[in-house]
């Protein structure tokens, strides 16, 4: 990154830079805005997914702002408002006015896009060297976990996620189980509350595919080093998602399984094999019956014809399913998002 050069000679370079403005009769040391604490020099972005979160967003956003301002010299927060119908947006504006040195923006999506596309929109706007992705606004972790995740990333992990230290929901376990079983490789994904990504991952993902249907799978596909931190669940329980989001999530689960795993293909292959085997069995049975007993006239030809036809039909179906899978793949890659406006709040 180019602007890192800016800091390469350490803090003093930054100070002399401040003084190198025209003559400024201000005592920087005394001025609170210029005091140099031991803050991180990396520029971080935090992208927060917001959908009907009026009850949770206030404390959540406040915690993120505080973490960013206390720990980083330069940061930005991007709230992706996925067409909330409640008061979320006015609460965000209110809390934003308390921010002192972080930049806060809101992306208002034109209509409900769902978490994946909405977060993509946020990621595209983010400029940080590291980008936090907060997939939901439930503050069930201690804010210090955010910095733990960041420090783990500095230790050489391109992707570090944070997961609640509790038993996953049955449906989640089922999903991730099927995912790993049928993807032909070990993703090792779990339920995650948030994660951090290095700029390398973000760049690699954007050059891999314009539209990732399911970000988590794409991140693992990027082939860069990943880490995970389990945190003890504190405070609030996760609120149930609203109906729209619930429906979106189950559809996403189905889509992801179809797109990223061979579940659909393998299932149809298995079924075809089974049916082909049954057709063969029926053919054999028909032939045997023809010679051993005396079937009604025409039965043998009818059954033989049907069995052979089915045998061929299932073969054709397999080919069609393969084609369909390819088509779905290509259509999804072209899918795009549309946003209404980008507001800079702070």
């Amino acid at each position, binding site marked *: *990154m*180019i*602007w890192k*050069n*800016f800091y390469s000679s350490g803090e003093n370079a930054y100070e002399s*830079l401040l003084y*190198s*403005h*025209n003559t*400024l*009769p*201000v005592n920087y040391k005394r001025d609170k*805005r*210029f005091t140099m604490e031991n803050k991180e020099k990396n*520029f971080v972005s935090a992208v927060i997914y917001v959908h009907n979160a009026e009850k949770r967003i206030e404390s959540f956003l406040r915690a993120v702002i505080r973490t960013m301002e206390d720990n980083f*010299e*330069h940061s*930005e927060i991007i709230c992706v408002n996925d067409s909330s119908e409640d008061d979320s947006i006015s609460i965000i504006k209110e809390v934003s006015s308390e921010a002192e040195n972080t*930049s806060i*923006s809101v992306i208002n999506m034109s209509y409900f896009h769902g978490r994946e596309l909405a977060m993509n929109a946020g990621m*595209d*706007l983010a*400029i*940080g*060297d590291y980008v936090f992705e907060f997939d939901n606004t439930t503050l069930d972790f201690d804010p210090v976990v955010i910095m733990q995740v960041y420090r783990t990333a500095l230790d050489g992990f391109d992707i570090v996620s944070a997961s609640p230290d509790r038993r996953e929901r049955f449906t989640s376990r089922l999903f991730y189980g099927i995912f790993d079983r049928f993807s032909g490789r070990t993703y090792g994904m779990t339920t995650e509350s948030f994660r951090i990504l290095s*700029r390398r991952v973000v*760049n690699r993902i*954007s*050059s891999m595919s*314009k539209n990732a249907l399911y970000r988590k799978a794409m991140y693992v596909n990027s082939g860069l080093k990943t880490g995970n931190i389990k945190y003890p669940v504190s405070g609030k329980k996760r609120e149930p998602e609203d109906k729209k989001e619930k429906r979106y999530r189950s559809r996403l689960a189905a889509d992801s399984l179809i797109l990223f795993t061979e579940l659909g293909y393998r299932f149809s292959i298995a079924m075809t094999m089974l049916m082909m085997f049954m057709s063969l069995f029926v053919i054999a049975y028909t032939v045997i019956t023809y010679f051993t007993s005396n079937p009604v006239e025409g039965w043998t030809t009818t059954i033989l014809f049907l069995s052979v036809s089915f045998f061929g039909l299932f073969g054709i179906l397999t080919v069609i399913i393969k084609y369909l899978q390819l088509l779905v793949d290509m259509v999804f890659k072209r899918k795009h998002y549309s*946003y209404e406006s*980008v507001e*800079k709040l702070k």
Partner: protein
Amino acid sequence: MATERFDKVIIGAGLYGLYAALFCCRKGQKVAVLDCENEPFKRATYVNQARVHQGYHYPRSISTAMKSAEYFERFNRDFDFCINREFDQIYATSARYSWTDGKQFREFCKAAGIPWEELNPDNYFRSGMCDGAFRTREYTYDALILRDHFLDELNSFQNAVRLELGARISGIERTGDSYIINTENKGSFESGYILNAAYAGTNQILDMAGFEKFRIKYELCEIILCDVNEALKATGFTVMDGPFFSIMPFGKTGLHSLTSVTFTPHAVSTDPVPTFPCQKLSNGNCSRTRLGNCNECPVRPRTAFPYMSGLAGKYLLDDYEFNYRQSLFSMKPVLTSSEIDDSRPTLIRRYSTGPTFVGVLSGKINTVYDLEEFL
């Protein structure tokens, strides 16, 4: 102090003010130019991207584009000595968040009749970041060379022109067929013709004269001057059309200016006259009635360089390097009607005749010729 009479009194010693002064001197008129700064060209004429526009910047406002193109040749001919042509000006459309894509930009150039050459975005930008890149014909002017030229020219009309710097205007009165402009420290100026070319201060002047104000909002803007490496030296980049950035040569200074749509404005005032919380801390240098110089202000904002460079670094290949040199701040008035199409019309209004009061508001350097028919 005595009241002196002039054929024209011009408020504001920026490009528009000095151009008008020189134009009138050449017609044999006696002119006074008033400015609160102690030097001409201390604000917007100097503190901006220094583009000599040919219209590329306005893909959503073909009227602004064609207007710019119209005067492009003339400005470059008239002020050839201050123009830097020695670089590739590359416009690109961002693949994301842009209101205009590569194809639309091409069509726009065609429609506006301005030259372009299509380039491969991957040669300049990170993969996938831009969906179109174009080499364009756009230059940059050097404001300080231009200022010296105007001062030299005006110098040959010494008896006809009075350049009154550091003048603090305290009131504007109308008496019969003339206006009298009173100042706190430089006496009074009487004329049958007033030109208000105070740009960011324009509404404050109109307020004093009791005329309807322009519908503008104010943005406190930062332009960053950068040292750049060889790879970037002879290249300017402008990424369109939305929350993006531009890094391009700053006149003939050898430095590049870095600006971004999101981070260049530090504070916004939507009041008819500029109203900012920092004015209270300016030791009386700046107020709602008299705008101070943001660039010399003790409480000017902290630089947004980390943000702007982060944004530029997200797009540009690592071959292009730039480092912070200096920040320039100034107040920019933005017409509130032009937010949707991002147009920058040059507004010239005649508020009264006999005596005449004319106000001009323009964000572009090469539409200065529009003034002529009003002088």
